[in-house]
C-alpha cells in the first residue's frame, strides 16, 4: 500500500536531514514509528503526506507517487489542529466543507465522525472548552472525515486520561480491522506494543531498526516475568537466574540461564510452583528501543 524507497531529505540546516529511509506498509497494517525528539519522524511524516518534497528517493501510495492533499491519506497532528472558538460540530462542518465531496456525503461523514468518536454529547460546545480527552477525540474525528485508507497519527494520546486513551486505541483497532493502515508515532512504547504489527525505530534521520513486532521481541527476548504462588528454592533461583521483583513477581534472565521459556516453566512446574501470571515481552520493546537508540545496534 505505502512504499517508501531510499528516501532522502535535507533542510537548510545541514545537521537536520533524512538519509536512506525505506519502509513498506501493507493494507490493514499498523506501523509503530519510534524515535527520540529530532530523530526525523515528523520529517518522514511530512514526506509521506506530501508536505515535503524529497531530495531523492520516492514515496508511493498504491503504486502512485503521493502528493499533498491525497484523499486517502489523513494526518492527526500532535497539536490540537482545530479552531477553539468554533464548536465541535462547526469544526467538523468546516473540515468536511473543504473536502471535494457532495453535500449529503459531507453530512454523512460528520455524523459518522461524531458517532465513532462519541462526540455527540458535546457537539455544540466550543472546542476550546472541551477536556483534554474530548479535544483528542475531536482532533482524531477530523481526520476520519477523510475516510482514509492510511491514517498517520503523531502522539495521539499525549496528555490524555486513561479512559480516553483506551477509547482512542480501541477505535484505532476497529479502524484497522476495517482495513485502514495506520502509522502511529508515540513515546508510550506500551501503547505501540499493544497496537502495532510493525515497528520502525528512527534516530538521527535514519531507520535504525524495523520489522514485525513479534519477530523483534522474540529475537530480543532476554527475560520473562512471572508471578509465582511461592518462592523458589535457592538452587532453582540460581538455575533459572531468577531475581525477585515487587511482590510475588520474579524475573527470569533467560540469556544468563541459557534456558528457553518453555524449559524454565517446566522446571518451575516440576518444583511444584504454580505460575499465576506471565508478563512476556511487556517491557521488552522499551529494552529494544533503548538498546537501539543508545547505539547498541542489535538489528542493523
Amino acid at each position, binding site marked *: 500500500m505505502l512504499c517508501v524507497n531510499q528516501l532522502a531529505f535535507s533542510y537548510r540546516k545541514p545537521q537536520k536531514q533524512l538519509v536512506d529511509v525505506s519502509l513498506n506498509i501493507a493494507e490493514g497494517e499498523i506501523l509503530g514509528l519510534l524515535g527520540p525528539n529530532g530523530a526525523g519522524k515528523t520529517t518522514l511524516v511530512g514526506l509521506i503526506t506530501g508536505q515535503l518534497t524529497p531530495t531523492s528517493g520516492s514515496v508511493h501510495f498504491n503504486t502512485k507517487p503521493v502528493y499533498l492533499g491525497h484523499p486517502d491519506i489523513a494526518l492527526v497532528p500532535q497539536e490540537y*489542529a482545530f479552531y477553539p472558538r468554533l464548536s465541535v460540530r462547526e469544526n467538523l462542518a468546516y473540515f468536511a*466543507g473543504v473536502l471535494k465531496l457532495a453535500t449529503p456525503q459531507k453530512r454523512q461523514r460528520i455524523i459518522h465522525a461524531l458517532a465513532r468518536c462519541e462526540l455527540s454529547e458535546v457537539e455544540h460546545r466550543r472546542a476550546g472548552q472541551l477536556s483534554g480527552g474530548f479535544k483528542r477525540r475531536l482532533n482524531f474525528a477530523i481526520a476520519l472525515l477523510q475516510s482514509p485508507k492510511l491514517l498517520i497519527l503523531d502522539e495521539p494520546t499525549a496528555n490524555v486520561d486513561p479512559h480516553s486513551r483506551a477509547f482512542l486505541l480501541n477505535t484505532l483497532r476497529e479502524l484497522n480491522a476495517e482495513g485502514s493502515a495506520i502509522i502511529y508515532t508515540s513515546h508510550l512504547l506500551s501503547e505501540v506494543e499493544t497496537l502495532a504489527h510493525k515497528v520502525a525505530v528512527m534516530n538521527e534521520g535514519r531507520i535504525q531498526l524495523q520489522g514485525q513486532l513479534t519477530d523483534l521481541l522474540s529475537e530480543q527476548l532476554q527475560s520473562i516475568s512471572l508471578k509465582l504462588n511461592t518462592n523458589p528454592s535457592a538452587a532453582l533461583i540460581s538455575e533459572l537466574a531468577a531475581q525477585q521483583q515487587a511482590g510475588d513477581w520474579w524475573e527470569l534472565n533467560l540469556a544468563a540461564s541459557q534456558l528457553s521459556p518453555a524449559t524454565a516453566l517446566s522446571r518451575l512446574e516440576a518444583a511444584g510452583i504454580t505460575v499465576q501470571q506471565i508478563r512476556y515481552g511487556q517491557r521488552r520493546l522499551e529494552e529494544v528501543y533503548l538498546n537501539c537508540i543508545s547505539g547498541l545496534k542489535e538489528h542493523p
Partner: protein
Amino acid sequence: MSALIASIRKETLLLIRDWHALLVLFLMPSLFIVIMSLALQEQLGEQPALQLSGWLQDNNNSRASDKFIAELDRQQHLSFTKTNSGQMELSTKEQLFALTLTADFDAALEDPSRTPGMTLRFAPELAQHDRLLINAVVQDAFAHFNTTEIAESLGYDRAYAEQQLMHVGFIQAEAAADGQDEHPNAVQQSVPAWLIFAMFFIAIPISTTVIQERQQRTLTRLRTFGVSMGIIYSAKLVPYFLINQLQLILMLALGAFLLPLLGADGLSLRVQLPALFAIGCATSAMALALASLIAALARTLEQATAISGAINILLAAIGGIMIPTFVMPPLMQTLAQMSPMNWALEGFLAVLVRGGSWADIAGPCTRLLVGALILWLISTALITRGKHDV
C-alpha cells in the same frame, strides 16, 4: 469553490467571536474620533474673528473724533472700552492697548505736521505681530474716515470714497483654485485619520490567526485536506475586507450623526460617495497586504502583536494621523508622504474636505494599490519559501 465558501464562513465565525479584535477594530477608533474631535475643535475648528481689546480715550470730543470713533466701531478686530480716566492699565490678560485721541485731534486733521492726532500704547508683553495688527487696523479705520471726509468735502458720498478713492476690493483674498490650502476642521481630520488607523489594525487579528494556525498545525492539516494556500489566505481576506468597509460606514456615521450631538462640528456626507468608497477599498487593500506581510514575517503571537502595533503607530505618527500634516514642519511633511496611511488620508481629505472626485483620488489610490501589490508579492514569496518548515 465550496472550500472557499466554507473557509470564509469559518473566518467570519472566528472573527465575530473574537471580542478583543472587535473592540480594537470598532470601539478604539470610535473613542479616538470622539475624543480627538472634541479636543481639537478649537485648534482646527472655524476660528471666530480675531478681536483684541483695548482702551479708547477721546480727549477731543469733536464731530470729527465722533465720526472717527464710529469708523473704529465698524471694524471687527478691535474692541474698545471707552474711558475718560487717565489711568489706563495695560496687560496681555485684559486691555492690550490704549488709543488716545488727543485734544488736538480735529486740528491735527487740518495740519498733520503740527501735532499727532492720536497716540497708541501697548501692553509691554504684547507680541510684535499683535502690535502690527492693532496699528494696521487703526490706520485702516483712519484712512476710511479721512478719505470719506475729503470726499464729502468735495461733494461725494462714502461709497464714492471707498470705490473711487480707496479702491476697496482692489485686493481680493481667494482660496487656491484647487482647494489645496483648505484645512480640515477637527471632525474632518479625526474621522478619516482614526478610521484609517483602525483599518490598518486588522493586521493584529489576521496575523495572530495565521500564526495560531501555523503553531497548532491547522494549516498543515488543511493542506493535507487538499486546500490550497490561495484559498486559505483569500478566505481570510474577504471577511476582513468587509470589516474594513463596515468600519468606514460606522466611523462616517459617527462623524455625521453622533459628533454634532456632542457639540462638535458634523461631518458632511454630501460628497462623491463612489469616490469615498474607492479610497476605502484601496486603503483596505493596503491594510490587508500589510497584514499578510506581518503574518508571513512573524513566527510567534508576541512577535505578530508587537510588530503590528509598532508598525501601525509609526505609520500613523509620521503619516499625519496623530498630528495633522499641515501643522508639521516641511521636513516632516515630506517624511509623511512615505506613509501609506498618509496616502489614504490624502484621498479621504480630498473627498471629505475638498469635495474631490475620481480624478482627485487617482493619485492616492494608485499609490495604495501599487504599494499593496508590492507587499503581496513579498509576503507570497516569504510564504512560499517557508512552506518547507514542517
